[in-house]
């Protein structure tokens, strides 16, 4: 990876997506992360914020838990490599400015609720009339159509609407769980990035721009939950629910505690099971008939998990992972965030990048999500301060003068 100085020219033509001009009119996670995938791989992304700023600026995490709009970790992460401007689209002049920017752009990425975009006079019909070649990527919990499209919603609501939590996450009888992060937003974001980039790539062939309507709930309901469940339900009228165990039909296949945390204990195929037995020191119980295949082991889950737990509790997670892996058994340590951050593997792959932010100082960030050897991507420039590039973008892109920009600021337009 090439560490690039923060002073590198903005929008310099490098990266796989160089030449693609994107407006990010999103907040929090889904649209900003989608736009980050564009900017980290070389697209010229201008982030347009309302005067009060992206809600992520208030959402933290903050250093020392002291809120500050320029010190939000969430904002920092999702807005690298972008230039940032402010624009009050509720003001007629502001709306005009955004439309002018969109006339000169290839892509708009946004995650406002549909009624909000309509209220601003920024519905798809208006945008398409402004620029027929514009690809409008809208990422919302429920999508632009359907009975819930007018509902208020966030990541949490979208995730739990998808069937994923009821089916796959939590103990029976207890509340279904999200994954402790913005799972629906991220799923929607990568879905939107793939479908949206295709719409840009194939724009001439498709005959122009279009709206790419992503519902985070729908994407998960389809591609995660639906794929493995919906055919069965439609044909046989039966369905499964969460069990709290990693894999109820085979064993061992679940997370177990160990001396210093947890491991994912997996030994299903005969070779894996034999490997595990060897690492455990061939205990007598493991040779019992009822433990000789994954299904019968699962039928005796209570017994076998107790036996294995007794053993794992005497060992550390890294040791368990190393020895089991060496014996052909796919046991992995359940890394904490700190342990993930300290992994030699990720260091050897230059996954982490050191970045400098004017308010947050120097910090270690996650780098590119995938490696393109011919045109490396990844975060280089920190997220913009609120309105940091107002002058530059409005002058360069719209040909305004310095005094025009000053006037806009004075009238509260930007």
């Amino acid at each position: 990876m090439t560490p690039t100085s923060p002073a590198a020219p903005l929008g310099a033509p490098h990266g796989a997506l160089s030449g693609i001009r994107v407006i990010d009119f999103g907040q929090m996670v889904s649209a900003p992360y989608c736009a980050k995938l564009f900017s980290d791989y070389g697209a010229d992304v201008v982030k347009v914020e309302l005067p009060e700023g992206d809600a992520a600026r208030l959402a933290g995490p903050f250093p020392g838990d002291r809120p500050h709009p320029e010190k939000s970790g969430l904002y920092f992460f999702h807005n690298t490599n972008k230039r940032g401007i402010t624009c009050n689209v509720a003001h007629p002049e502001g709306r005009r400015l955004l439309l002018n920017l969109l006339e000169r752009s290839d892509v708009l990425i946004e995650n406002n609720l549909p009624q909000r975009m309509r209220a601003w006079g920024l519905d798809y019909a208006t945008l398409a009339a402004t620029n027929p070649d514009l690809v409008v990527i809208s990422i919302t919990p429920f999508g632009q159509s359907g009975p819930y499209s007018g509902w208020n919603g966030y990541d949490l609501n979208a995730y739990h609407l998808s069937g994923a939590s009821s089916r796959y996450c939590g103990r029976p009888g207890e509340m279904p769980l999200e994954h402790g992060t913005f799972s629906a937003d991220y799923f929607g974001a990568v879905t939107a990035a793939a479908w949206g980039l295709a719409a840009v790539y194939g724009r001439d062939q498709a005959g122009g721009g279009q709206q790419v309507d992503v519902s985070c709930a729908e994407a998960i309901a389809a591609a995660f939950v639906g794929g493995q469940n919906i055919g069965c339900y439609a044909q046989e009228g039966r369905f499964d629910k969460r069990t709290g165990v990693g894999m109820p039909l085979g064993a061992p296949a679940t997370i177990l505690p160990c001396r210093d945390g947890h491991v994912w204990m997996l030994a299903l195929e005969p070779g894996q099971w034999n490997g595990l037995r060897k690492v455990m020191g061939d205990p007598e119980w493991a040779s019992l008939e009822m433990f000789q295949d994954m299904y019968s082991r699962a039928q005796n889950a209570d017994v076998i998990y107790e036996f294995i737990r007794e053993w794992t509790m005497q060992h550390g997670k890294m040791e368990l992972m190393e020895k089991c892996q060496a014996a052909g058994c796919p046991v992995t340590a359940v890394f904490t965030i700190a342990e993930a951050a300290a992994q030699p593997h990720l260091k050897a792959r230059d996954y982490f990048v050191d970045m400098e932010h004017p308010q947050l100082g120097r910090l270690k960030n996650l780098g590119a999500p995938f490696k393109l050897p011919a045109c490396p991507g990844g975060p280089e420039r920190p997220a913009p301060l609120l309105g940091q590039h107002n002058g530059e973008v409005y002058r360069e892109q719209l040909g305004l003068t310095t005094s025009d920009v000053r006037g806009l600021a004075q009238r509260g337009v930007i």
Partner: protein
Amino acid sequence: MAKHLPLEGVRVVNFGWVWAGPVVGQTLGFLGAEVLKIESAARVDMTRNLPPFADGIPGPNRSLSNHACWAGNGSVSLNLKEPEALELALRLIATADVVVENFGPGVMERIGLGYERLREAKPDIILFSMPAAGLYGPLEHVRTYGLSLTSLTGLDSLVGYKGGDPVPVENAFSDPYAGIFGAFAVLTALNHRRNTGQGQHVDFSQQEAVMQMVAPAWMDYALNGRSGGPKSNEHPTAAAAPHGVFPCRGDDRWISIAVCRNEEWQGLVAAMGSPEWAATADFATLPARLAHIDGLHAHIALWTRDFDDRELATRLQEHGVAACPVLNVGDLLDDPHFRARETFIEVTHPLGFHETIYGAYVKTSRSRPDVRPGPAIGADNERVFRGLLGIPDADYERLVRDRIIY
């Protein structure tokens, strides 16, 4: 005007197996690419034998889950253990733009299809590899299952009930996630090829791609040195309260409620009939609600438990509150929203049976894909080998007879 999909004319040869690799192909296929999965009856993909089967009749071309996850891919069958099959694969790759694979590092080289060999066949080929932990590094040969891969990212350490042990996610969220993400990666490489004429070998580590999902916890670690842990359904950066799933009337019925803004809190209080507890200082502001979140959630759970989940969601939405029923698999097919969006569709398989799969889960206004059933093994053999590669009939018949095309 005829509808044209954005990736028409792009040909993808997909060696992907099980779930993540086929979803890369599916995504590109839905977007218009011609995707040819290479597989073989000599070693049938295990997901082709996953029950339930269409009409209850077992068979590698009847697995309902396999068809849903693989739809969008075509299929040609080649027994790659045979040198002639390898030659055919290379001839096909010579006509292709992208090759996709999700084996472990080094496997493509071992079967004679390493990047250098592919480049000889097609100089600007894009090879997309998506091993669990990338193509190189100390963990390059780490063994994981899709559902445990997330343990290497820190994500699994965050899932669970507040203050408790991690709870396993019972299926590989990362497989479709990495599969769709992978399609984006392929598109970046296609765009670079369009800009420069250059192909490349994309190193897509599923660990690294998925690890970006822990960003909220990662940033708390980077800024404050904290490592995070399970916290039920609370907001990932503690920026909303209430933020949880609450019981409703009936067996295993729940509602999700997320309150991020003050107006939403006012709406919730009004919907609850302005109970006394909600007017106390403990719940007056977001910081106060966060400080008393366990008590807050307990109060709300006592209120929600007597309501029907859908009725309550509708009522809360009328008050501007982000609330939604928690659906189970049985609810999905008849849910009015998913019905209206045609999230799930019934299709007729070429073998004659009906099956329900998911359709185009993204709505594109100009170029909506026509989703067809998942492929039978070798469904595209004739078209590809006779048509595209121009293999004479007699040769084709011999190749089939000799189980090269198999």
